[in-house]
């Protein structure tokens, strides 16, 4: 973890350094009391997170933030004695990820930084999944309601087949859980848990890593969709069941 502190008060640098070294075992801490040097360090060192004071000797902290945002999307936490509303809003609107007022709790500073990093990781992970389609080959014999992946026939019950059929034949289209329930389990009450249970079962058989599905994806928080490709098979699949 590379962290940059831009702060004119040496005591605060020392306190933050001590705190962060305890929170992250492997921390590479950089610090400067000058805004201009801070901007340069962001450029050269690519820290993962910047802690920025607003009152610096050579430059105003807002100007430092503005210059950083011209070229970098790095996480920035403003740490300042200026606790008034206007500065808080200005800081957040001009690109800071958080705004903490001195005197501050070191525990809260660390908790807030961890929260920011966690969110960044989640967003990046989602973006990566979206661009990597599965390479497994899915074949479906519609006439005989048989599905195979990489030559292995899947044992799917009629409801699971119907659910998969619906998603696959509408490739890329998101279905809400409620819509899937109505279609496949019309006799069930409004509870959509049944859909989740069957999707889990299908993923278990279909996906290389059922915990990181690449064929049947969540569509937002309330639905599912199928992505990827499949081929239609006319002959009944005669391979031994896998």
């Amino acid at each position, binding site marked *: 973890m590379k962290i940059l502190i831009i702060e004119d008060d040496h005591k605060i640098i020392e306190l933050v350094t001590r705190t962060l070294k305890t929170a992250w075992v492997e921390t590479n801490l950089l610090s400067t009391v000058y805004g201009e040097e801070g901007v340069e360090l962001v450029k050269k060192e690519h820290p993962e997170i910047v802690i920025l004071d607003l009152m610096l000797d050579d430059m105003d902290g807002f100007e430092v933030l503005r210059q950083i945002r011209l070229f970098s999307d790095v996480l920035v936490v403003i740490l300042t004695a200026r606790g008034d509303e206007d500065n*808080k*809003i200005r800081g*957040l609107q001009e690109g800071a990820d958080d705004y903490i007022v001195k005197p501050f*709790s070191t525990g809260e500073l660390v*908790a807030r930084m961890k*929260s920011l990093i966690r969110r*960044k990781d989640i*967003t990046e992970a989602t973006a990566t999944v979206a661009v990597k389609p599965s390479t497994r080959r899915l074949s479906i014999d519609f006439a005989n309601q048989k599905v195979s992946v990489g030559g292995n026939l899947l044992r799917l019950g009629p409801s699971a087949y119907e659910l998969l059929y619906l998603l696959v034949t509408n490739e890329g289209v998101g279905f809400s859980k409620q819509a899937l329930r109505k279609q496949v389990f019309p006799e069930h009450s409004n509870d959509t848990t049944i859909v989740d249970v069957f999707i889990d079962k299908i993923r278990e058989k279909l996906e290389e890593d059922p915990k990181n599905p690449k064929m049947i994806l969540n569509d*937002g928080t309330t*639905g599912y969709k199928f992505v990827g490709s499949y081929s239609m098979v006319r002959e009944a699949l005669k391979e031994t069941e896998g």
Partner: protein
Amino acid sequence: MTEKQRKILVVDDEQTVRYFLQRALTTAGYTVITASNGREALEKISQFDVSLILLDIMMPELDGFEVLDHMRQHEVNIPVIMLTGIQEIPAKIDSLALGADDYITKPFSAEELLARIQVKLKRAKPTS
């Protein structure tokens, strides 16, 4: 979907708070859904495609910590901003450790809340 069309779920057991937030958020262009307790919040989360949640802590049925914990255990990663009267630091640290994205104490200004919501939505967008 543009930022302004995003859905925000407001969870608070006090009607006046829900009303205030609904007005502020709707005026800012967001679509608002409300829930008055934790159980209702989880139902709404499963029914609607929510972009962000404003979550009170002290509520009947399930409290805010339980809602947050339940969500994160089930890998529901919607950004959550805790919005509460509890000022104590341990509550802040616990919330953030459980998976909250931010923690704002009442009373707060609508303007600061809107600024924080924008920051969280921006960071949750995969293409940003």
